[in-house]
């Protein structure tokens, strides 16, 4: 378990790079800090979904519902909508708890389902949540319908306001930079939690269920409870990410929580390598950044080369996305950076 000097040095280097990153990005434009923040949010979501899909092997196509629940909990408790302005460190745990309960409610009726059937039911659940958000504006205006909820409070720690800039010496800490550091801390915590769960009694039970549910039951695992636990844990992470999303964005509307988002997060998990935390992080980063890079380069490049815009960046984005998935599934079916177990399995096939 102890680290070599080289590992320590590498780790220190990564830490310095992560701490310096937002300032480097900010010099290219604050937009890039924001883009990074959203990428980290997607990493959090992917790590949450990875518990359900990667560890326990339960195909969940409605995961964005928990992101939505977390976001709306934050929006309702910290905006002029109800005139409530609770601090974020109170709301985030509430959001996680509500999402957790939602996860159990979704999980309970699906316990006997597997594979395709489970995917369809969870897909339906995701849509139900979105439709609720869309329609719960009357008779009591709970969610403000399709217009969404505006003017959501940013994070505030004492005098430190996350929507304003602070200058310390020559360093300008803009709002997004502060969120970046906060997200980094949360990400660190989530990575540690995931790793610990993976190497635990419960983590093994999840993988056992994924590998052979009947053998898992015969080995004394209460598969119903352990599956519900996977749904609950995954949903809690989604709820926390949702709360932070609401605060960073400043407004929420049902539009942010469409099926496409669930599929995107699932694609991140699958592309990166189901079950392997680092693979999932890599997948989420790739699918978050590459489209943005394209958005910022495709147009200028085309104008420079042809003097006019031939292919819309948005079209190219979907094309690249589709191609990436097809190529991964063809050449690296277990993902770019698969779980060790799967990797070993492949090298065995090659040998």
């Amino acid at each position, binding site marked *: 378990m102890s680290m070599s000097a080289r590992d320590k040095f590498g780790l220190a280097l990564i830490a310095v790079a992560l701490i310096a990153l937002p300032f480097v990005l900010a010099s290219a434009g604050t937009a890039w800090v924001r883009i990074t923040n959203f990428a980290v949010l997607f990493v959090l979501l992917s790590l949450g979904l990875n518990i359900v899909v990667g560890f326990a092997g339960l195909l969940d196509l409605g995961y964005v519902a928990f992101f939505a629940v977390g976001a709306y909990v934050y929006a309702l408790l910290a905006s002029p909508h109800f005139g409530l302005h609770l601090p974020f460190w109170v709301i985030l745990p509430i959001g996680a708890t509500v999402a957790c309960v939602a996860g159990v409610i979704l999980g309970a009726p699906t316990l006997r389902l597997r594979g395709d059937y489970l995917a369809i039911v969870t897909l339906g659940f995701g849509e139900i949540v979105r439709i609720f958000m869309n329609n719960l504006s009357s008779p009591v205006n709970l969610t403000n319908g399709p217009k969404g909820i505006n003017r959501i409070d940013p994070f505030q720690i004492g005098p430190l306001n996350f929507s304003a800039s602070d200058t310390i010496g020559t360093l300008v800490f803009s709002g997004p930079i502060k969120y970046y550091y906060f997200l980094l801390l949360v990400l660190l915590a989530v990575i540690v939690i995931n790793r610990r769960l993976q190497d635990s*009694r*419960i*983590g093994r039970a999840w993988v*056992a269920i994924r*590998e052979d549910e009947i053998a898992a039951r015969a*080995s004394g*695992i209460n*598969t119903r409870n352990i599956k519900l636990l996977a749904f609950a844990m995954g949903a809690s992470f989604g709820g926390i990410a949702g709360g932070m999303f609401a605060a960073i964005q400043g407004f929420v509307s049902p539009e942010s929580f469409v099926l496409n988002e669930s599929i995107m997060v699932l694609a991140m998990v699958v592309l990166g390598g189901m079950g392997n935390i680092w693979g999932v992080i890599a997948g989420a980063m790739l699918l978050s950044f590459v489209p943005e890079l394209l958005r910022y380069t495709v147009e200028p490049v085309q104008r420079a080369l042809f003097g006019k815009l031939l292919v819309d960046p948005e079209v190219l984005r979907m094309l690249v996305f589709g191609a990436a998935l097809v190529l991964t599934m063809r050449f690296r079916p277990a993902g770019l950076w698969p779980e060790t177990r799967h990797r070993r*399995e492949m090298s*065995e096939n090659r040998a």
Partner: protein
Amino acid sequence: MNTVLLEASGIGKRFGGVQALKDVSLTIKSGEIYGLIGPNGAGKTTLFNVFTGLYPRDCGEVQFAGAALDLASPHAVAAAGIARTFQNIRLFANMTALENVMVGRHVRTRAGVFSAILRTRAERTEEAAIRRRAEELLHYVGIADRADDLARQLSYGDQRRLEIARALATDPKLLALDEPAAGMNATETTALRSLIEGLRRDGLTVLLIEHDVKLVMGLCDRVAVLDYGEKIAEDVPEAVRANPKVIEAYLGASAA
């Protein structure tokens, strides 16, 4: 030695038009090796599946270690002390041999999500104990050197041993083996035989389904014979072998 460990009475199970089990009653005593034989399709595996809660039964009760067994939930059966292996090996293919056995400890350990996240002292102690016990069991069944290999990479015989180790990890009172020698070569069967004899010496009760007549007759204290879902005989091996009903069941089956 002669206390009753398991008492099944009036077990019935039907699959559509097939009466897989019909009013089966049997008694297994503590410390014995109890053989269950019968032609293909006689209902042996189905009886295992009923005992371990994997198939709902139509009727009948099972008393185990002095209490009624909750046949509706397999994990409760495992907790009560019945462990099994499968006729068509069911391992956690992409977990290592060691991890497979560690899963078997699940039912005897407690750590939950929060103690795992916080890595409490109790959790770490328990994890270490799980690992130690799993290593011991791999050693016991003779595949300690394969601990870090994926279950799917093991040879057929080693997979059967691994299944036994995983079952033993649940600290069973009764170990139910469904055709453990199937597909094994002579050397592997001999090793299996001494493994089962060792289990008996260590005080475990074994319920053994097996087609290998030599193995059954050599190992078992008592043997029951199923035919078309009915128990047609139950006695010491020599008596069963001489029983005309049994001979007819086997001859009828092989003649068909």
